[in-house]
């Protein structure tokens, strides 16, 4: 039972990270029906920024939670700026183009950002300092849950609640929901669609940056390529839950995390990806629009 619980927690941690990134995919898809393949790179840039800032601060002699706070803040601002700029450069000019064009543009942006970071920084793996503090009170719970796992879970939960509140109860959230439902109609009733889309990218990037900082300090290393696999997995989670649906992305991410964790724990890690993608195929056969996705009626 202990083993089951540990795998459950491991899957939950993994799922939380996927969820933070998957939200960015699903929000953007919900609003402009674009699969933003550069999103994984925003996550990677967040992690890199945090690494650079924390190294500088450590050099200046700072330590403890203030480093984490400052590094994460700068990473969030930086990633948000990147998300905003990527949208303006790569997607906005193509908003009226056929849907394939922004998709290609997104793939191009992803390749560009990866190589840009590789050239500007390094192609080697870099050690990432464990910024997350050790929480002494967890010691009494044995070693079932590590402090970094605990922090990841709490941060993800808080971020999701905040996102939910933002979408449900603020003016911006209302504008986002309106744009997602019908962009032209939203425009007609006075919603600033361009600004709403920018906000969506910024919020998605902030979540990705949080994910980047958390996971990089959890696994302790980064390079320019980490965004790719994380991005693919998060995208899978978003599709699993129904792309465009925010609760769907979270649900999909947890299901994916648990599937991988239990597949490794009870079968073999050789089949980790096999199980994850078999599950995806099965769900898409039974529910083509994902678990919580709305079956979209073609608008005429």
């Amino acid at each position, binding site marked *: 039972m202990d083993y089951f619980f540990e795998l459950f927690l*491991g899957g939950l941690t993994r799922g939380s990270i996927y969820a933070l990134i998957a939200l960015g995919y699903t929000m953007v898809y919900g609003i402009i029906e674009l699969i933003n393949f550069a999103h994984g790179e925003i996550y990677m840039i967040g992690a890199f920024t945090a690494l650079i800032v924390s190294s500088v601060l450590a050099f200046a002699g700072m330590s403890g939670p203030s480093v984490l706070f400052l590094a994460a803040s700068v990473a969030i601002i930086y990633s948000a700026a990147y998300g905003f700029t990527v949208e303006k450069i790569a997607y906005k000019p193509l908003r009226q183009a056929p849907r394939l064009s922004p998709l290609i543009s997104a793939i191009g942006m992803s390749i560009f950002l990866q190589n840009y970071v590789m050239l500007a920084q390094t192609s080697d793996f870099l050690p990432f300092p464990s910024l997350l503090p050790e929480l002494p009170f967890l010691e009494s719970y044995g070693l079932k849950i590590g402090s970094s796992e605990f922090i990841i879970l709490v941060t993800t939960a808080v971020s999701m609640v905040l996102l939910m509140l933002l979408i449900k109860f603020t003016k911006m959230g209302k504008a986002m929901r309106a744009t997602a439902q019908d962009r032209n109609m939203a425009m007609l009733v006075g919603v600033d669609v361009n600004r709403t889309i920018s906000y969506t990218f910024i919020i998605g990037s902030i979540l990705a940056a949080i994910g980047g900082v958390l996971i990089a300090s959890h696994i*302790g290393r980064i390079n320019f390529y980490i965004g790719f696999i994380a991005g693919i997995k998060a995208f899978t989670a978003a599709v699993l839950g129904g792309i465009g649906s925010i609760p769907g992305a979270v649900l999909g991410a947890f299901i994916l995390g648990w599937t991988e964790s239990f597949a490794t724990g009870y079968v073999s890690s050789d089949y980790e990806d096999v199980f994850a993608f078999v599950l995806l195929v099965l769900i898409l056969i039974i529910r083509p629009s994902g678990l919580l996705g709305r079956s979209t009626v073609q608008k005429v």
Partner: protein
Amino acid sequence: MKIRLSGRVFLSWFIIAGLAGIFAGPAAAADTIKLGVAGSHSGDLASYGLPTKRAAELVAKEFNAKGGVLGKKVEILSEDDVCKPELATNTATKLVSRGAHVVLGHICSGATKTALGIYKDAGIVTMSSSATNPELTQSGKYPNFFRTIASDDAQAKLDADFAMDVLKVKKIAILHDKGDYGKGLAEFARGFIEASKKAQVVVFEGITPGAVDYSAVVNKIKQSGAEAVIYGGYHPEASSIVIQMRKKKMGTLFISDDGVKDDTFIKVAGKAAEGVYASGPRDTTKNPLAIAAIAANKSTYNTDPGAFFLNGYAAAQALLNAIQKAKSTKYEDVAKALRTYPVDTPLGKIKFDKRGDAIGVGFSMYQVRNGVYVEVPAATPAPVKKKK
């Protein structure tokens, strides 16, 4: 068209036969010890073959300066196989017909394998400086084959033996990164452990390189009660696994390969790297003979030694030394001498086991201590703090 082509083939055979006659004629008259050197001397893998050729020339020069072997001058017969198995048979046939007494080569495992049958039939001792395919020596098909490089499985054996004999662990988890190198090593290690029955393989799994976390597989290792992990693969995943194990306060020993014996591993894993074992090629560049050989290469050819240079140097020395010790160029005598008399080479003092692998060449075990890899003796137990 067809007639013209076969005519050309006939003509080329004629020319080759003629050339062979020209070469064979004066060589036989001069009565030299002929050291055949076969390998990739041109093409995209030339950088693997040329250092061995240079090494052979340097060794021949050295022996000739001392009066040759058995009172005869050493002559180098060089043939290019471009590392292609389909050309290697041709290369081998040419060397045999030119009367090579021993052959240093070939370079690539595939080419070596196809050429070996021809040398075997001709009764010629063949020694490679670089062919690492385990089968070449282990299949027992090529008793005429020797090599001065450790085979791919030697490293797995070192890792497995180190875990079982030096660290004395009973339960071992084996992980790999699903790649050719890592998985191959992991499978060899499993084979050795299961054959020896001294320990039990409790987990054998491939992990996904680049995954966001390895906590599930780390939990599995913990659950299995493994005392040591043998990991086949490269350092990025190794560092993640070690970090996660240490975060869970697991004292499980970690043993890996030369993909991990890299300073980047220590840099990335930081404190978690302490105590990690990794095997890597034995460092012989401080051997005085190696220093002399590298200096001779520099002064004669004005280049860096290049890949397998010291292995090639050692192989040429071993072959000529064996002829000298055997006082004969006959296959049985040379092969016996290679297995009997140790010889001083840049790789250290080596002789060959009955399969043809060099004893004393190969890998050493290293351990991270205070942020650097330190060689630990494989035979005597290293001072390891027992972690519970």
